[in-house]
C-alpha cells in the first residue's frame, strides 16, 4: 500500500463509494462470490443441458461462508437488545437471499440430472467434471432405482433381448439427451465475442459487442458460455 492508496481510502469512503467494491487483487470478495453465484444460477437455469460443476470451489466456498454467517447470527441472537434487532433482520434477510441462490442452483442441476440421468452417466468418461461427486452418486442411485422399478413392473415380463435400456439398434439411441439445438438468450460479457452460428437459411460468423443480447442455438454458444465470453439471460 502506498500513499496514494491511503489518500484514496480517506477521500473515497465518504459514503458515496460503492459499498461493495472490492480490491481485485485479494481473495474473492463477498461481492465477487455473489456475482459468480448469480451468474452460475442464471446460466444453469437457462441452459438446456447440465453445465460443468462450477469451478474454483465456488460451491464449497459459498457453503462455508453461509455457515459461518449462520453461526454469527446465532451469536447475535444471544444478546437481544432492540437496537441490534434491526441489524439482525438485515443480516438474516441477506443470508436468506444467498441460501435461495445456492439452493436454487443445486436444485436446478438436480432436475436436469433427474431428467437425463442415463445420458449424463453414459458420457461420463469424456465429460469428467460435469457432475460433482455427490451428484454422480445421486445419478447412479437414481438410475439404479429406476431400472429396478421398470424391471419389477414390466420389463421382467419381456423377452431377455428386449430388456435393455440403452439399445442403439436401428440408429436411434434409447438414451435421451437434452436438445442441444434449443434456443437460448445469451449476452456477451466481453467485447467482440465471435462464434460460428448454424442457421436455417445460412451459416455464418456472428460478432457481438459487450452487453449485446442475442437469441441463438445452445450448441453454438455453449463454448462461449463455458469460457466466460458469454452468459445466458
Amino acid at each position: 500500500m502506498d500513499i496514494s492508496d491511503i489518500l484514496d481510502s480517506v477521500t473515497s469512503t465518504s459514503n458515496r463509494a460503492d459499498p461493495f467494491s472490492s480490491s481485485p487483487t485479494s481473495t474473492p470478495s463477498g461481492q465477487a462470490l455473489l456475482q459468480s453465484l448469480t451468474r452460475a444460477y442464471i446460466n444453469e437455469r437457462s441452459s438446456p443441458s447440465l453445465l460443468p460443476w462450477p469451478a474454483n470451489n465456488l460451491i464449497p466456498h459459498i457453503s462455508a461462508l453461509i455457515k459461518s454467517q449462520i453461526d454469527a447470527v446465532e451469536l447475535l441472537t444471544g444478546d437481544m437488545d432492540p437496537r441490534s434487532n434491526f441489524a439482525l433482520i438485515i443480516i438474516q434477510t441477506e443470508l436468506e437471499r444467498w441460501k435461495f441462490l445456492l439452493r436454487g442452483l443445486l436444485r436446478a442441476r438436480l432436475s436436469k440430472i433427474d431428467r437425463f440421468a442415463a445420458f449424463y452417466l453414459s458420457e461420463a468418461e469424456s465429460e469428467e467434471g460435469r457432475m460433482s461427486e455427490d451428484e454422480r452418486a445421486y445419478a447412479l442411485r437414481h438410475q439404479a432405482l429406476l431400472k429396478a422399478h421398470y424391471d419389477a413392473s414390466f420389463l421382467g415380463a419381456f423377452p431377455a433381448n428386449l430388456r435393455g435400456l440403452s439399445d442403439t439398434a436401428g440408429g436411434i439411441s434409447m438414451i435421451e439427451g437434452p436438445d442441444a439445438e434449443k434456443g437460448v438468450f445469451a449476452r456477451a460479457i466481453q467485447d467482440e465475442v465471435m462464434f460460428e452460428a448454424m442457421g436455417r437459411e445460412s451459416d455464418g460468423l456472428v460478432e457481438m459487442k459487450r452487453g449485446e443480447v442475442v437469441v441463438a442455438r445452445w450448441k453454438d454458444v455453449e463454448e462461449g458460455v463455458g469460457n466466460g465470453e458469454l452468459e445466458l439471460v
Partner: protein
Amino acid sequence: MALPLPPGLTPMEVAFFCEMEMITVVPRQRLESLELLGGPTPVLKPPQRANLPLWLALLLKRQRRANILPPPWLLPTSLERILRYETETSPNAFSPPPPHPYAVTARQAPTDTISPPFLPSSTDDAPPDCLPYHWLELGEILLEACSDDITDPGHVRTLLRDLREVRMAKMRASTKDFDAEGGGVNSLVGVGAMEVAEGRQFILGVMDGLRKLGASKEAARREQEAGGEGGDLSEDDEMEM
C-alpha cells in the same frame, strides 16, 4: 428436491435479481456498517446519500428509516424522451442500453465482465436517457414501494405501461427476421430482463418450431455445402423430428 420450475428464468426470479441493483437512498436514521456476506454496508448518516442494493433499500423504506431517490431515467421527462425515441426515432429497434460504466482497456480488470444486476445503472448518477436492463421491474417495484418518493407517480406509471407496449410489439416482431443476419442469430440490443422472461416461451417456441420444420432442408443444404461429407449428420437430424 429437484426444482419444479420450467427452464429459463421466471418473472419471479427476474424480480429477485432486480433487487440486487444498486439504488441511492437518503437515510433518515443512523445505521452502523453491517458485515454482510456480500461485503460491509456503508455507514448511514442522515442526510448523506448512500448506494445500497434495492432489497436493503426497500427494507429501510418500509420501516421509514430511509427515502429512496428514484433513478434519473425514472423521471417523467426522461421517460417521455425515451418513449419518443422508441416510437419516432427508432420504431423498429429498442432504444440503446446505458453505456457500460467500466470501459474496456488494454489491462484486464475484473470489472470488465460485470453485467446487470451488478452494474450501477439505477443510482442517482446513472444516465437519464437510457433504460437499464432491469427497467420494468425496477420501475414497478419502486412505484409499489415508494410512490411518495417519485415525482408524478401516476404519469410515470402510464409512461412505463406505454413503453412496455411499444417494446413488447418490437419483441414479437423480431421473430419475423430470424434469419436476416445469417447464422440464425437474432440480435436484441437494449432488451430488458422482464421482456426476455415474458417473451422467452413465444420466441424460443417459434424458433424451435421453425427449426424442426426445416430440419431436413437445413441438413440438405449443409450437406451440399460440405460436399456430401455430412451424410450421417443429416440422418441424425431427421431422426430428431
